[in-house]
């Protein structure tokens, strides 16, 4: 085991769907001698790539949950997280990014920068993750890695610089020129495991020299030493590498590497690059929130002797029982250590400690700062922080978006019901964007998530992993209600039914709040409402906002101002004021001209230009607004804003319209007003449902 922190790397592999990152991971494991045989993602050998450990992932050829694995390369210990590509699962990507110190951004030599690449780039930016780029699939027809380099500069706005030149392209792609060492590399042997180093081929010499100049120019910005040496013509390989590394760590330079994972070309140099250019855990500043000091930020130290701070970032129910993936930020983890969960205050004892390699694991005695390991039998939720007793730190909360789709599910029989409950309990702990509750009125179990595919995958997993067969209803959009006009209220709640009476009167105003959310403002003067009942009023409003009168969805964007009222020395109570608040809201809500809001999704459709017309039509038919369309030769991308309610089944429609050649991604953008006609329809449906309920 490596303990030297400088020889440790935590990397993520982020990319667009189908740019081949699972294949790339597979090759990395192979060259690092973690696996003995290469499996393809949709392999004929029926084994599937090693990282896609879930059966479902194997079947669909996509990676859903990020498995983590540890490899050794050139005396360095490298933890790799394979991240999912589909936007529906971005919570996984975002969580990985929180945990990793750096990343490899994988791009396709043909597709280049695609919509999802832009999303991933934005995430890397948000978490300030340094990265290098790998332009994969140089063997494909239409491959143009240099154009992809240009796109990283133009479309993503990075200073991208070529570190290699391809020798031949498409079918003729057979090696790389290393622009730092000025050597040609060929990948021999059955699986590219033998690297043959030769002089740069004559026909590439001039271009290689020119590209090397470009590289040195770009790298010089980060090293005066290199700049001076370059002027005098004595720049060394080490100087160039050191300067590039500085640029990468500052997130101001993106070195671009080329290869074809599928053809076993360019992987070993990429691993060298991970070691050369990406940071070790001590070079990355991590911050935590000090709960004992009112949420002040603390910079963590990468000292193995310091008190322990670690983040549980993923739970998994594997064949070996429950696993908790944990990243150590400060101090160490040893078997037998006692730690405190800073959210729940619960104490845990560290039991078995293992290092993960997709499906197999190695038991270890100790993990130091920067390490990513798994623990057995720890009860917690994803995102919980564990500290040594005496510390109360929380790793800053990972941004969790609100779910936008819900689905009613119903187990087919009693046995399935038990298993379904077990599955739901597990899934909600694993994935904070996946939620579930039982609708008190219909008694149905509702699951909520980030999109149709997101929920589909969980329904599938219930079947396969828990043998819980369920029937599903139609997906439901998470609507919201909002008022559009300010309105005054004056409401008295009075009840006299023998025994103690109830009395409360509140006066004030509702105002629309453009930024959403809820605000409560107390402007009562002279004790017209005693201070102890003010929180009761707020509580009452919060409760009533959970269900609007239009269509029964939560009301957002309201400011409540209470400025007057009355009480009774005997009959006023917490309860009476809560009830009064609810009554006040119900009484004036309709006067505040409430509107129905719906989630509007940012949709990106990519495919051959010949289908652009079809795509425009599908967007327009779905009440969508096309924001822009970009045509780059034969390839085009359409960006649009479309109401989620119209997007169900879009994948199928798009596939059949474009012969499967176009694909789309979508993510939540904002809440927007539902057009009057549809709002009326929704309100009628709601009334009808209420009527039926009351008849029952």
């Amino acid at each position, binding site marked *: 085991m490596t303990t030297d922190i400088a020889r440790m790397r935590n990397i993520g592999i982020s990319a667009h769907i189908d740019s081949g990152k699972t294949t790339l991971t597979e090759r990395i494991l192979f060259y690092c001698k973690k696996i003995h045989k290469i499996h393809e993602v949709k392999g004929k050998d029926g084994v599937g790539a090693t990282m896609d450990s879930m059966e479902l992932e194997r079947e669909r050829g996509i990676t859903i949950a990020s498995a983590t694995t540890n490899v050794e390369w050139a005396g360095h210990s490298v933890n790799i997280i394979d991240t999912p590509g589909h936007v529906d699962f971005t919570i996984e990507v975002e969580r990985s990014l929180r945990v990793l110190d750096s990343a490899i951004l994988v791009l396709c030599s043909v597709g280049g920068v695609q919509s999802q690449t832009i999303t991933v780039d934005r995430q890397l930016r948000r978490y300030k993750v340094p990265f290098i780029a790998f332009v994969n699939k140089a063997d494909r027809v239409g491959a143009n890695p240099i154009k992809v380099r240009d796109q990283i500069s133009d479309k993503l706005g990075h200073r991208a610089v070529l570190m290699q030149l391809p020798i031949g392209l498409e079918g003729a792609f057979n090696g790389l020129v290393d622009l730092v060492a000025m050597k040609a590399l060929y990948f021999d042997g059955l699986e590219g495991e033998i690297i043959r180093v030769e002089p740069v081929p004559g026909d590439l010499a001039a271009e290689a020299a020119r590209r090397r100049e470009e590289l040195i120019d770009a790298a010089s910005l980060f090293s005066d030493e290199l700049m001076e040496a370059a002027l005098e013509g004595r720049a060394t390989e080490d100087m160039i590498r050191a300067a590039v590394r500085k640029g990468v760590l500052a997130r101001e330079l993106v070195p671009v590497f080329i290869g074809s994972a599928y053809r076993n070309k360019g992987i070993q140099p990429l691993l060298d690059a991970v070691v050369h250019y990406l940071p070790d855990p001590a070079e990355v500043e991590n911050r935590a929130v000090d709960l004992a000091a009112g949420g002040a930020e603390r910079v963590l130290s990468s000292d193995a002797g310091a008190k322990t701070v670690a983040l549980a970032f993923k739970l998994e129910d594997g064949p070996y029982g429950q696993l908790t993936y944990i990243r150590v930020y400060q101090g160490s983890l040893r078997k037998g250590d006692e730690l405190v969960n800073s959210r729940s205050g619960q104490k845990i004892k560290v039991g078995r400690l293992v290092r993960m390699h997709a499906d197999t694991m190695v038991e270890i005695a100790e993990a130091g700062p920067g390490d990513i390991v798994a623990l057995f039998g720890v009860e917690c939720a994803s995102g919980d922080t564990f500290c040594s007793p005496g510390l109360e730190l929380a790793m800053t909360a990972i941004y969790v978006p609100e779910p936008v789709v819900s689905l009613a599910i119903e187990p087919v029989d009693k046995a399935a019901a038990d298993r379904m409950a077990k599955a739901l309990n597990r899934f909600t702990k694993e994935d904070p964007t996946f939620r579930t509750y039982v609708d008190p009125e219909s008694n149905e179990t509702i699951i909520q998530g980030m999109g149709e595919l997101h929920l589909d995958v969980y329904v599938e997993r219930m079947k396969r992993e828990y043998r819980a067969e369920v029937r599903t209803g139609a997906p439901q959009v998470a609507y919201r209600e909002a008022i559009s006009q300010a309105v005054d209220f004056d409401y008295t709640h009075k009840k006299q039914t023998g025994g103690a009476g109830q009395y409360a009167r509140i006066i004030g105003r509702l105002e629309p709040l453009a930024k959403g959310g809820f605000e409560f403002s107390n402007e009562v003067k002279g004790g017209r409402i005693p201070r102890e009942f003010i929180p009761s009023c707020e509580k009452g409003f919060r409760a009533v906002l959970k269900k609007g009168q239009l269509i029964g969805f939560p009301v957002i964007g309201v400011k409540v101002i209470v400025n007057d009222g009355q009480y009774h020395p005997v009959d006023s109570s917490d309860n009476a004021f809560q009830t009064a608040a609810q009554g006040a809201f119900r009484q004036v809500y309709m006067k505040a001209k409430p509107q129905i809001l719906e989630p509007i999704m940012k949709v990106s459709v990519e495919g051959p230009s010949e289908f652009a*017309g079809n795509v425009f039509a599908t967007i327009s038919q779905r009440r969508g607004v*096309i924001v822009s369309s970009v045509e780059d030769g034969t390839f085009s991308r359409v960006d649009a804003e479309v109401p989620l309610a119209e997007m169900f089944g879009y994948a199928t429609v798009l596939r059949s319209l474009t012969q499967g050649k176009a694909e789309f991604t979508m993510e939540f953008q904002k809440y927007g007003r539902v057009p009057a006609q549809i709002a009326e329809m929704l309100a009628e449906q709601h009334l009808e449902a209420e009527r039926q309920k009351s008849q029952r």
Partner: protein
Amino acid sequence: MTITVKEEIIRRSPLRVLEKSISGGLGKGHVGVLASRKGVGKTACLVHIAADKLLQGQYVIHVSYASRVDHIVTWYEDIFKEIAKAPKMRSALDEFDDLIRRRVIMNFKQDGSRTEQVLRSLEAMIVHGNFRAETVIVDGLDFDQAGPEDLRKFREFAGRLGLEVWLSASLKKDEPLFDEQGSPYELKDFLGTIDVLISLQHHGDHVHFNLVQDHGRLAPKDLRLKLDPTTLLIAKEPRGRAL
């Protein structure tokens, strides 16, 4: 309330001055060109023209040959922010959302896209996308690569679909750029297919607008408009200051 303020803004717009000078406006089926050196402010003018149409409730397609579209989006945001500064222009955000729904940006790669293809995509947007555009803004078409034939195709397209098409032309040759009537030498071959031609020139610290051709007639005239250097909006030139 909002309506009348908006109407007032539309009525007072310096673009009304422009329209008056070109027989009431460019008109459907016609092609207008703004010509100048690079960096003088053609894009700003085109975005202002588009914003004015959007305010009037029209649908607009903005065709761009730039490498990215985000700065065009920002440009519109900025121009609407400027316009929303007008007193009483209430709920600027609401308005903006509504206006943006009627604008599409279509981006094409300069060297990869032939005019037929561009027009095909435009037609797909208008017909299949059910986007009822009345004005098309074309920014950054390379008049060196595209010949008069391409412009003729734009004009034919404008006529067939009932569109007003405004283009920008970047002048790249050596001085002098203009002949004695103010007509750019580089665009001589195109004059037959341009309905309205306006040139933008630096005069001191301001950019001035000169009408060169009005609906087929050579009609050199100072438009008494300038580009405001801080807002990048077209503005009226106070009388007496014009050259």
